[in-house]
């Protein structure tokens, strides 16, 4: 039927050949290629649920007295923003469901992007000619983190207010320009003016979604134009793509994935509570709650702020670099800076300026895999440090001890990850086995004359052939 529709279009608009070509576009098959799609579908759900939320949310920091249906807050003074989020949660039909789905989806969106980034990194998919697209992807990740932060900051509950206070301190900590930057964004001292609130809102519901959406379109186009990458394998060469064509095989499968993403997220949104703002209460600058935490994708920055020993750079009574700079600006700067720079660094190290359309398995390039493992282990260690206070309250691990433990771990864990990964990769490369799959046993054939000959598995011989 689709083909008929294409023919219909073709005969009238002459667009069919392009469309037909698109339908025959080949997707190489590997389950790890689906992480990006999970992110894509999460974004679709974020936009859809977000639109519903904008119909009811009132982005205003002017105060009113709450008289809604949630009794414990009745009579309290609060911003219209917070009050409308409460109304959205308790009175608007399906409001709480959609709000929760939106928030769960944000968490999953970021997680899927990170997984996708890891897949791209460890398989060397960022290499020329796809390095540009890799930068687009990293930029989307950065934007998505800020977008998420803006999103939960809008609600003006106690947690989001504290999150903004930390963000403000980090912005102010940037040497030389920090003060101006803070004033520019907040319109003055924290907690800022009404203008800040409308900036935050327009950024969250328009500017960032449009940026992410446009970059996503660009990203997909840039995936398709130089074709997909694929793993090495039988008949797979730098110059071809083997896989499933878009129609009917891949599109249906992808649709299935979309429904799965939607099913999981709506089920979570309906059954598991997320960010119960009515339990936190409204924010006032003089209020603070212990144990305030950001959403997970900012946990690594909280961890860095926590771990950084107290020191500022002070020159003659003038604090040039206040402490939040190290954890809040320098650390993410280093991580993202490295990720952006890596394709160029690797090209330089290997003097390999050729385009690559075949992916490496992680073991094929032990150095890259080990460096990636060290980087992600580093960020993960610091990420876990962000929840040290929870580990203290819930599990009773002494807090100061944890901080020192994490400080040591932030050096030791990446080092160990590097050495171990490198060893494992090199071993696997020699051995030809796959962890958790096959025993590394060899298949022998007995010839008529009684001699033995080793049969090499098909895929591998092809792969070896490619490598030569």
């Amino acid at each position, binding site marked *: 039927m689709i083909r008929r529709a294409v023919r219909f279009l073709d005969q009238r608009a002459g667009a069919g050949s392009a469309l037909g070509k698109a339908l025959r576009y*080949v997707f190489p*098959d*590997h*389950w*790890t*290629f*689906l*992480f990006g799609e999970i992110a894509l579908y999460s974004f679709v759900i974020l936009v859809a649920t977000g639109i519903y939320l904008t119909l009811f949310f009132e982005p205003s920091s002017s105060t009113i007295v709450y008289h809604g249906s949630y009794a*414990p*807050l009745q*009579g*309290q003074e609060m911003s219209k923003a917070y009050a409308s989020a409460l109304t959205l*949660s308790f009175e608007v039909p399906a409001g709480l469901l959609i709000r*929760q789905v939106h928030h769960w989806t944000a*968490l*999953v969106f970021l*997680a*899927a992007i990170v*997984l996708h980034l890891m897949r791209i990194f460890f398989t060397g998919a960022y290499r020329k000619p796809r390095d540009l697209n890799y930068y687009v992807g990293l930029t989307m990740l950065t934007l998505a983190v800020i977008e998420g932060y803006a999103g939960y900051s809008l609600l003006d509950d*106690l*947690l989001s207010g504290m999150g903004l206070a930390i963000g403000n301190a980090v912005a102010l900590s940037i040497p030389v320009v920090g003060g101006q930057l803070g004033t520019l964004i907040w319109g003055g001292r924290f907690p800022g003016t009404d203008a800040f609130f409308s900036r935050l809102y327009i950024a969250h519901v328009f500017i960032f979604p449009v940026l992410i959406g446009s970059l996503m379109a660009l990203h997909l186009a840039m995936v398709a134009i130089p*074709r997909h990458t694929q*793993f090495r*394998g*039988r*008949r797979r060469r730098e110059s*071809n793509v*083997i*896989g499933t064509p878009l129609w009917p095989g891949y599109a249906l*499968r992808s649709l*299935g*994935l979309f429904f*799965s993403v939607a099913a*999981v997220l709506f*089920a*979570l949104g*309906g*059954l*598991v*509570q*997320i*960010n*119960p703002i*009515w*339990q*936190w209460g409204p924010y006032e600058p*003089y*209020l603070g*709650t*212990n*144990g305030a*935490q*950001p*959403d*997970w994708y900012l*946990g690594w920055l909280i961890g860095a702020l926590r771990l950084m020993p107290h020191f500022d750079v002070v020159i003659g009574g003038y604090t040039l670099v206040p402490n939040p700079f190290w954890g809040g600006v320098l650390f993410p700067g280093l991580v993202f800076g490295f990720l952006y720079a890596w394709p160029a660094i690797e090209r330089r190290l290997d003097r390999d300026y050729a385009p690559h359309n075949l992916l490496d398995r992680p073991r094929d390039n032990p150095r890259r895999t080990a460096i990636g493992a060290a980087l992600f282990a580093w960020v993960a260690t610091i990420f876990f440090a962000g*929840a040290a206070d*929870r580990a203290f*309250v819930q599990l009773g691990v002494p807090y100061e001890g944890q901080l020192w433990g994490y400080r040591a771990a932030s050096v030791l864990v990446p080092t160990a990850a590097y050495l171990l990964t490198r060893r494992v990769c090199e071993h696997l490369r020699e051995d030809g086995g796959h962890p958790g799959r096959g025993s590394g046993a060899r298949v022998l054939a007995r010839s008529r004359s009684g001699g033995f000959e080793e049969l090499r598995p098909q*895929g591998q011989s092809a792969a070896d052939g490619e490598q030569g």
Partner: protein
Amino acid sequence: MRPRRILIGTLAAVLGAFAIAVFAQPPQARPQGGSSAGTVAVPTGLREAGRALFAEGCSSCHGFEGEGVPGQAPSLRGAGEAAADFYLRTGRMPLDQVGEEPLRATPRYSDSQIRALDAYVASLGPGPAIPVVEPGRGSVSDGMQMFNESCAGCHGTGGKGGVAIGAYAPPLGEATPTEVGEAIRVGPYVMPSFSEAQLDQRDLDSIARYVQLTQNPDDAGGFGIGHIGPVPEGLVAWFAAIAALLLVARLIGQRNEGDEPGGEEGGKA
């Protein structure tokens, strides 16, 4: 055949997600029945019984007349009935180890023994009496506001505890209304004490009522997963949602060696 596999896989993934979400839910703290409140008329017999108990269990640290031992334990003169009752009913005293923060534990003494010890400590010098706390008379909205102003900085807005400077600010999931009132008046360990002028009787009632609400919060959104916000939420996002979706991806996506011979070649170099 494939679609069926996909369907089953999806179902399994979604169910798995819920299993995890359900198990991620820690057991809810139950509000306990209120402990005996009310001013105790102090019969001498009760105080003498208290003195005997004190000599046996407390004097090693606090001295025979509760005068305190430098480097061991503070004097209890003026600590008051409220302090004794709070420390004993929450099992904080007798302390195991000098120098440690007293933590909540199963009370070591029976109700009547505690009343005797309370009477004895009260007789050592004037101090705060056990407050009469009736949450029913308070306003939960006022209580929430006062809690967020005076207590959330240490105990967290939902009363789930946290790191206070140099101490452990405990979660308030087990605190009874009377214990809340006592803690406010006594200010155990690094916690400040609040006088009648700072928080009056009605405020105690309201705060206690709010603490009761935090022990049994309104989970309009579904499973509460601990009521501490982003940390368990992140865990559920990764270990339920992402895990489920990876499973789906794994089921509908191919593995490398599953090269289908029929796979099309799109050689358009």
